[in-house]
């Protein structure tokens, strides 16, 4: 499976049953449209995978800043069309949550957060479960976008939370640098698949905000 996520940093991964064969991630959050296709080209070469061996595309649907998010989504849909493969969409926050759940106790609730800019956070609420396949995170709320002080009083993971440490007393400092990645997203997807949960083919972007455009209020007439 080829996975892409551009909700925060831009990343790509080739995985087989949740096992990462090759992965790529940018450091910055502003070069998605440029970086993704060359990354996919390089990953295929590194892993020695020919396109006909691919079975599916997985893409993080956000939430995330709009322009970057679209680069991953349009790339994934185009790869799916050109290679005639199914394209699955998953909330990008699930990638962070899956990673966080690996160190959490059964039944604990926690939050993950990414930077929504404008002094706000994209965040989601999850619960840790454990079964024969190991630990996984089940979404129990969100995703949504609010100011940091609106978050419930639960442990919160992720780079977005780290940006607002002063307002988040429950910040988990060990994970304050974590970003959603395509590799974690495909691990989270595999955690679902091995539990018999089908992936969604909905790749609609989770913008969570309207475009800023406002319909012009009727122009003020000159005074008489």
């Amino acid at each position, binding site marked *: 499976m080829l996975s892409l996520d551009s909700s925060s940093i831009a990343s790509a991964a080739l995985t087989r049953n949740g096992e990462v064969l090759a992965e790529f991630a940018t450091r910055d959050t502003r070069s*998605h*449209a*440029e970086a*993704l*296709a*060359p990354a*996919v*080209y390089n990953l295929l070469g590194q892993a020695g995978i020919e*396109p006909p061996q691919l079975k599916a595309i997985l893409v993080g649907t956000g939430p995330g800043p*709009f*322009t970057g998010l*679209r*680069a*991953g*989504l*349009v*790339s*994934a*849909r*185009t*790869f799916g*069309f*050109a*290679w005639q493969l199914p394209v699955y969409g998953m909330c990008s926050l699930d990638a962070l949550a899956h990673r966080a759940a690996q160190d959490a106790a059964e039944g604990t609730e926690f939050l993950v957060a990414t930077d929504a800019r404008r002094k706000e956070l994209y965040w989601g609420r999850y619960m840790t479960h454990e079964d024969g396949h190991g630990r996984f995170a089940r979404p129990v709320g969100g995703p949504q976008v609010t100011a940091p002080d609106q978050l419930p009083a639960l442990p919160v993971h992720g780079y977005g939370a780290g940006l607002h440490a002063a307002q988040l007393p429950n910040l988990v400092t060990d994970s304050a640098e974590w970003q959603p990645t395509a590799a974690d997203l495909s691990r989270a997807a595999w955690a679902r698949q091995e539990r018999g949960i089908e992936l969604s083919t909905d790749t609609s*972007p989770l*913008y969570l905000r309207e*475009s*800023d*455009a*406002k*319909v*012009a209020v009727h*122009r003020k*007439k*000159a*005074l*008489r």
Partner: protein
Amino acid sequence: MATAEPLVLGIESSCDETGVGIVRGTELLTNTVSSSMAEHARFGGVIPEIASRAHLEAFVPTLQAALADADVTLDEVDALAVTSGPGLAGALMVGVAAAKALAVATGKPLYAINHLVAHVSVGLLDERGKLPENLGALLVSGGHTEILSVPDITGDVRLLGATIDDAAGEAYDKVARLLGLGYPGGPAIDKAARNGDPAAFRFPRGLTAGKYMGSAEKPGSHRYDMSFSGLKTAVARVVETFEASGQPVPVADVAASFQESVVDVISRKTALACTENSIDTLLMGGGVAANSRLRALVIERCRARGIEVIVPPLNLCTDNGAMVAALGARLVAEGRAATGIVFTADPGLPVSTVSMGTV
């Protein structure tokens, strides 16, 4: 891969049109366009974020429809081309990301090309199959107002003049809003102006004063440049004066007088630029090329100086993927190097860069 009749797929997403065109050499196979214009109507102008969202949803369906309409498969395509600028950053990014993915998926060479030069390459798609010598171009749309000289469409394109503020189409949209006419403003004002007197109001002609014009030997600072922002303000003052005195605004007369100012400046400067740069054929492009008064006056003033004017069919004047494919095919036919997949969209790409990484 220098082949005379390459099969090229072109992608356009610089503004509010998602276009996919396919050409074989200079033969047009399909010009498939999905427009988000209707979604912008209530705002009276293109909203970049709304256009970008629409590109994401429209891209794969438009690609699919284009391939079906042209009856070709992705395997058969020789090369890909995409508009990489100038245009709206977020909108360009969707087409560029998609084109790169398509290039990686198919292994086909990708050309990142200039939107403005692509408008001129529409001239390749007529029955002659080649561009006239001593060619110039006038591009007028909601985002552009440029006069170009095109000695060599794949290697030498020069900007002679351009608007220094609003594009002409943008001025039309803003004035249409002032007058309570619809969106897009071009057709609405053109229609209203038919019943009006173009001499009813003497609106300013931007950048036509002697100090800006200079002479052919000693050109002023803006000899072929245009400005429409002061004109828009002058129209607003007139409208306000009528409103303040409680009289109805003479919409038809204001529309006709505004339009006359715009087309007078564009046609005069274009004819002058052509004459002084040995241009004897002028190609018109952009959505405002559909404006009846602009066409009439450009043709009249150019013909008077012996300059032939070509106006392509409207669906090739507005933004489309076929023009991108046509320029891509020309670059392939001349054996120009492809751009590849490592490049960045450039919202301010200068017209002298015909294709990124190859100039």
